[in-house]
């Protein structure tokens, strides 16, 4: 493919999403479906182009044309380009968008309501603006698309119009605008105030900055990107928003938006600032581990399916930031190999998590549409009624829990192996960082597998705990297709990980002398394909033995033994009971309050009672951070209000005072 065709194809895929969004506005019956199909096609193209650019030898591909001048004065001199690094994320965002669009094609709401039309329009625009962030190569373009994406997401959260939706939208608006302001300010400080500076120019100008000014800019940018990525303590908007967004949008919110923030952070840290300040890895490590640990604990505690998915994203973003922090430590200590390995682990984890989370979001969107319940306590027993969906969901859960041979396992393997291999050669500060990172990541790995197993088991296994769950039916195959694609991508992403990593440029990690190749990191190697083949061969052997040694037809249905009680949904383990041990072990962090009220029905008989049990998990972040912050702001607003007394004399007095002050300063 020549560069010229590549550029044209890129323009088609980029503008295709805009066209798709416009098509949904047309006033005929099938316009939404056509819009979604166009969206799907242009994002499929985007995935391919992102992959081509990410794996191509040439480092950058710049648009030869100026969108601006002819189209609108707003686009004046806005440069677009896609380099290898942005190509990875371009493929990621388009991949998630593709799954979302595919899901939206299959999920055609019965009534083409105004709200559904709005969602389709906003969805296309959101994908367009996310692509724009990745294509932008100067401050104006980046900030413009960033702000556009924030506002579109605000409207998408708002679209449900319930009280919860409004609250979530306002919370999101508050945090996203602060983040956008911080990012804009940080970029301007970095560029020395030049508005149209391209990123490569900023890299020059930033090297002239003094270290305090550089520190201010890096702090602003880190806070801005961390807040958008959903890191603790800025994570509060993510679960609230996920609960109220329309079914098809959840995948984009959880899988694509945080990854774009990770892209922005890495773009600044790796390509723009002259060197990583010594304190930055420590800050990123603390933010990352805090998010990963609290995210995992809240994932274990939570009972609402959508909120569990959101907190699991918080956990994963925290893990990725931890990987990045270790890479930065390694870079600052001159350990190039360790930095490469952990950075590629972070990128691979971002890709794998995005694909897996998008698939899992569509699974839960299907459940939300069909059953209209998202509280896990009212689900259960779905595996018997939806065997195909439950099988796909099982693969996705195993993959996201970083179990072999799926792609997230390869990412975490690369990180752990690189850290363990790098330990003995490390300097003392690096060694401490590696130990903290290793202990933290493995601790979170265990907790997050516990949380995901809970999510799957309580939703799909056991007896149904509500009428809706008992009447669940296998969904249409169109609704299954996106999650099936994502499960397949995770499987092949794991099996072919050496190939993928080497084509992304991690040639130092991959040995490709054998047929499939393997990943080799400091004293350890991983053969995903070999591992799977041996496992499959042993599984086949056991199947064979089962049929040879015992009679497979000698079986019958029986009732479950439940210790003499009537079996049924009352005895099935719920989310609350499953997480009981973990809740007890981490009670000092979670601050759960348990209340048990037992009232005897008959005064003389202590055994026949009415029992009321209540469990509340309070959010430490709301109580300790956001509530004091909001009451502090209210207090400040009240003080300021005293100035607005409403009497004209006071205002005239203010003007006079201002004049006097101006004169004093001027003279």
């Amino acid at each position: 493919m020549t560069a010229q065709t590549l550029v044209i194809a890129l323009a088609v895929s980029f503008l295709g999403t805009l066209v798709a969004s416009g098509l949904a506005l047309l006033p005929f019956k099938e316009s939404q479906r056509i819009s979604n199909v166009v969206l799907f096609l242009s994002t499929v193209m985007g995935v391919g182009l992102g992959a081509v650019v990410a794996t191509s030898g040439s480092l950058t591909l710049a648009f030869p044309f100026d969108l601006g001048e002819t189209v609108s004065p707003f686009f004046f001199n806005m440069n677009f380009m896609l380099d290898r690094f942005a190509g990875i994320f371009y493929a990621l965002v388009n991949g998630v968008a593709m799954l979302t669009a595919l899901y939206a094609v299959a999920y055609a709401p019965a009534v083409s309501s105004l709200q559904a039309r709005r969602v389709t329009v906003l969805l296309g625009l959101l994908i367009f603006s996310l692509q724009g962030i990745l294509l932008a190569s100067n401050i104006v373009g980046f900030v413009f698309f960033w702000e556009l994406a924030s506002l579109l997401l605000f409207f998408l959260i708002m679209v449900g119009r319930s009280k919860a939706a409004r609250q979530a939208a306002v919370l999101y608006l508050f945090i996203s605008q602060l983040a956008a302001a911080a990012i804009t300010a940080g970029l301007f400080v970095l560029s020395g105030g030049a508005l149209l500076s391209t990123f490569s120019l900023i890299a020059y100008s930033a090297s002239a900055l003094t270290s305090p000014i550089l520190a201010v800019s890096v702090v602003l940018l880190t806070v801005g990107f961390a807040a958008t990525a959903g890191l603790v303590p800025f994570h509060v908007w993510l679960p609230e928003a996920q609960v109220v967004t329309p079914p098809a949008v959840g995948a984009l919110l959880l899988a694509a938006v945080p990854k774009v923030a990770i892209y922005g952070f890495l773009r600044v840290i790796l390509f723009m600032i002259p060197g990583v300040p010594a304190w930055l890895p420590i800050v990123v490590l603390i933010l990352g581990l805090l998010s990963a640990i609290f995210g995992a604990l809240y994932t274990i505690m939570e009972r609402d399916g959508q909120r569990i998915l959101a907190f699991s994203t918080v956990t994963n973003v925290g893990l990725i930031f931890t990987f990045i922090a270790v890479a930065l430590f390694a870079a600052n200590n001159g350990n190039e190999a360790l930095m490469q390995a952990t950075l590629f682990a972070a990128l691979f984890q971002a890709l794998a998590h995005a694909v897996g989370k998008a698939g899992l979001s569509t699974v839960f969107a299907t459940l939300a549409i069909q059953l209209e319940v998202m509280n896990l306590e009212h689900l259960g027993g779905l595996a018997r009624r939806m065997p195909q969906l439950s099988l796909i969901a099982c693969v996705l859960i195993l993959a996201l829990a970083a179990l072999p041979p799926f792609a997230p396992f390869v990412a975490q393997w690369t990180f752990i192996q690189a850290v363990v291999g790098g330990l003995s050669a490390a300097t003392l500060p690096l060694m401490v960082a590696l130990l903290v990172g290793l202990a933290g990541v493995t601790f979170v790995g265990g907790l997050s597998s516990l949380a995901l197993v809970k999510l799957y088991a309580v939703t799909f296994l056991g007896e149904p705990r509500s009428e809706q769950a008992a009447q669940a039916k296998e969904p249409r195959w169109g609704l299954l297709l996106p999650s099936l694609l994502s499960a397949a991508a995770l499987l092949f992403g794991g099996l072919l990980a050496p190939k993928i990593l080497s084509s992304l440029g991690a040639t130092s990690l991959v040995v490709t002398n054998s047929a499939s190749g393997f990943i080799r990191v400091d004293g350890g190697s991983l053969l995903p394909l070999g591992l799977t083949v041996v496992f499959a061969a042993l599984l086949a052997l056991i199947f064979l033995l089962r049929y040879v040694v015992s009679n497979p037809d000698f079986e019958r249905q029986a009732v479950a033994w439940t210790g003499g009680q009537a079996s049924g949904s009352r005895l099935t383990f719920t989310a609350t009971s499953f997480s009981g041990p973990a809740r007890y072990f981490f009670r000092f962090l979670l601050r759960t309050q348990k209340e048990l009220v037992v009232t005897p029905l008959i005064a003389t008989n202590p055994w026949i009672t009415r029992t009321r049990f209540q469990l509340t998990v309070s959010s430490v972040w709301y109580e300790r951070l956001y509530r004091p912050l909001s009451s502090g702001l209210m207090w400040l607003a009240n003080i300021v209000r005293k100035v607005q007394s409403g009497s004209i004399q006071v205002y005239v007095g203010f003007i006079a005072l201002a004049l006097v002050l101006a004169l004093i300063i001027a003279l």
Partner: protein
Amino acid sequence: MNPLVLALIQLTLVLGLAPLAVGLLTFFKARLQGRHGDLPWLPYLTLAKLLRKENLLPPASWMFRATPFVVLTSAFFLALVLPLTGFGHFGTELSNFIVVTAVSALSSVFLVLGALDVGSSLSGVGASRSMTVMALLQPTIILTFAALAVITETSNINEMMAALSAINPVFPLVALPTLLLPILSLGLIALAENGRYPLANASSLLELAADQRGIFAHYSGPYLAMLEYASSLKLTVFALLIANFILPTALLTGPLALGSGLLAVLGVGAVSLAKLGVMMLSLACLESTISRMRFYRLQEYLTATFFLALAALVLALVVDLL
């Protein structure tokens, strides 16, 4: 010898000895507690009996049926790739410690899913408890093996064993005293992974002690045989692995190998049996002298093991620096 032949010998030996290990354990325990006890080869007869019995299926989904196969396959995988009767045979490229830990975690996850598939609170208690313990044990396992990796400068468990036997084929602990802490930690991990005292009572089906065994409550016939066999395999694999870390001697490979040929295979079988006997006797002594911990006190055990593993790793790094 051919690496594939070596692998098949190891698989056959371990698969054959596994029920005997459990039999020896119950036999020793009974004798220590003043009972006559069953004969050590009773587990073979139990397995044969279970395989002939009817498979009773409670109302459940496909997960219930998939679990025994995945769990037994994971156990076979561990028995194949780990250095139990020798090292460097076919499949040992797969014995990276993170891979081994993950395959073992895969089996624990499927056990939990299979148990929760039946809507019963007995298996639910077992599932939630064992999943919590497994989750909190993850960092300890990784840190312990990381300590071994730092000492032996490789992350492949087979190469670790080869490195140890190259340093001192008789008793590497003498040459490398830092090995003591990781091996101790590995022992504590083995107790937790296999549901032994003080974490759980593996020979009881009572609800209060049902941490690990409650999971099997709804399985019967061939499926129960598969799960029982998998758990005895896991016990055998851990016992032989720890024994080999202490004494990497008299294996099919290594400086003090028994040579090749049928006699050598028989010799290695006898040595493995002796190692298993000693390990089971010490486990029986341990289980007869301590009592089971209350489940809600297990965080003390888990925290202590975590810090032991961390201390092992730090000590290994400090010695490495000196």
